[in-house]
């Protein structure tokens, strides 16, 4: 079974530039999550989708971050404009549903904002 796929694996941009990350969840997983993991910290949930609807985006900085999952499968996370403090690993995870299923993580995208 293929795992969660993410791209790119690494990205370096300058502050105030835009960047987008892509995630393809495990086939059949209805729920998709984006996490931000700053160096030395645990992952922090940014947004959770159930199919193509948003379940929780309470910790998403909506002035600069946006995410979509238009067809209920793959998803993109965008930052516009980026700030220095956005440097982190962005992890995508998926689960069968929101009913207590285990979340499986992708390899992450490491973002460096200069």
């Amino acid at each position: 079974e293929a795992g969660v796929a993410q791209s790119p694996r690494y990205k370096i941009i300058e502050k105030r530039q835009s960047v987008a990350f892509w995630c393809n969840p495990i086939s059949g997983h209805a729920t998709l999550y984006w996490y931000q993991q700053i160096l030395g910290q645990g992952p922090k949930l940014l947004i959770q989708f159930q199919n193509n609807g948003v379940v929780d985006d309470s910790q998403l900085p909506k002035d600069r971050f946006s995410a979509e999952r238009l067809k209920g499968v793959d998803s993109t996370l965008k930052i516009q404009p980026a700030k220095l403090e956005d440097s982190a690993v962005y992890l995508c995870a998926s689960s069968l549903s929101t009913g207590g299923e285990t979340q499986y993580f992708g390899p992450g995208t490491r973002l460096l904002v200069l």
Partner: protein
Amino acid sequence: EDKVVQSPLSLVVHEGDTVTLNCSYEVTNFRSLLWYKQEKKAPTFLFMLTSSGIEKKSGRLSSILDKKELFSILNITATQTGDSAVYLCAVGVGGAQKLVFGQGTRLTINP
């Protein structure tokens, strides 16, 4: 605010030693507690615990949950250098099982 705290933050031991990692939590609407292992890439799932006092075991790793005292431990016996990683504890909260992560314990096993 939901909070998950892991201790110690860092641990260095010799191969063959036994280690115990701690996770305590203060959350509203607890649903589950999960342990993940994170090397230089994605966190990989180890255990999910929902009931108090029932030990889950996988090889040299085991974990148990105490819902009265609000903590969990992860034990690793006969440690190997391949056990070196960051171990993350996460608590699922609410009906949507939002995961709240601790800051992780960095475990280093020296040969």
